[in-house]
């Protein structure tokens, strides 16, 4: 219980998960908008998203708006649960009530 999920326990991925956790259930956000909100480079964001995708923590949905491809990202059910568990563990480690 006290072991922090290594997939989330990295600054960049924690920031991505925290940002995605503010979306409503089943909500999603486009890649450029997430990049803007996080103020991260596209390469950095992509790299960390791939790690989160490999862990099935984010759902990636590719679609088109006219002829422009758009990638939408959101927390998967597993990802939302993992993030909540991570927060609980963090609070426990810090001596707070989860």
């Amino acid at each position: 219980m006290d072991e922090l999920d290594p997939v989330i326990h990295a600054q960049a991925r924690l920031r991505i998960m925290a940002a995605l956790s503010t979306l409503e259930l089943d909500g999603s956000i486009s890649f450029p908008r997430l990049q803007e909100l996080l103020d991260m480079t596209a390469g950095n964001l992509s790299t960390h998203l791939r790690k989160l995708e490999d862990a099935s923590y984010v759902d990636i949905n590719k679609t088109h708006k006219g002829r422009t491809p758009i990638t939408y990202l959101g927390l998967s059910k597993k990802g939302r649960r993992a993030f909540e568990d991570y927060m609980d563990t963090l609070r426990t480690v810090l001596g707070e009530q989860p």
Partner: protein
Amino acid sequence: MTNNSGRPDATGSSPTDADAPLDPAAMYALLQNQQRSVETQMGAFVPYITLAWGLTWLIGFGALWLIDGLQPTFSLPLAVAVPIFIATILISGGFSAWLGIRSGRGMRGNTASAFTGTVYGITWSIGATALAVFGGALRYQGMTVELANFYYPSAYVLFAGIMYIIAAAIWHAVPSLVAGCWLVIIAVVAPFFGYPGHYLFLALAGGLSFLALSAFGAVQQRRVREAANGGNRG
């Protein structure tokens, strides 16, 4: 930087710096600051909207008050005051809609929230139209112009106040609840000031409140931004 496909390009920086975890307390602070930062950025448009409506109330209701409020020293012609009132409302309405759409760019909600947003938006139109028709019916049944001068502003301000309260309930926005309750109060109190004092009351009580709300929102957002800037770059 990106071809919009979500994959890195040649300029993408190394993620290694941001890979290292901080101590648990710092990670927890980072998490909370990031959530607040996103919420603040998503709501960055709100102070601009309240500023626009503050000016609309001051200028719009102020123009209506100037028709007879400073008689006999000065009188703003009815043909000038009413278009000013309508124009300020249309400009603020359009500005609010534009900012709202802009803030929601790149976001996709779930079906339930899309339904809620659509119904809420349509309710503004239904209510505004219904109040106009209801006012027309009352006029048809003998309501005088003098009474109509009280009915229309109070009815619309009351309706706007209730819509703000509903918005607060849906989106858990306390400032919207405060603004809504205040609008309901000033709507029902305004007629006690008589004509044309009720227009001045609405201009000041509504306009200055929105300006104060705008300033409060801007200060609060700056505070959150400063807290979030404690190591959020990646």
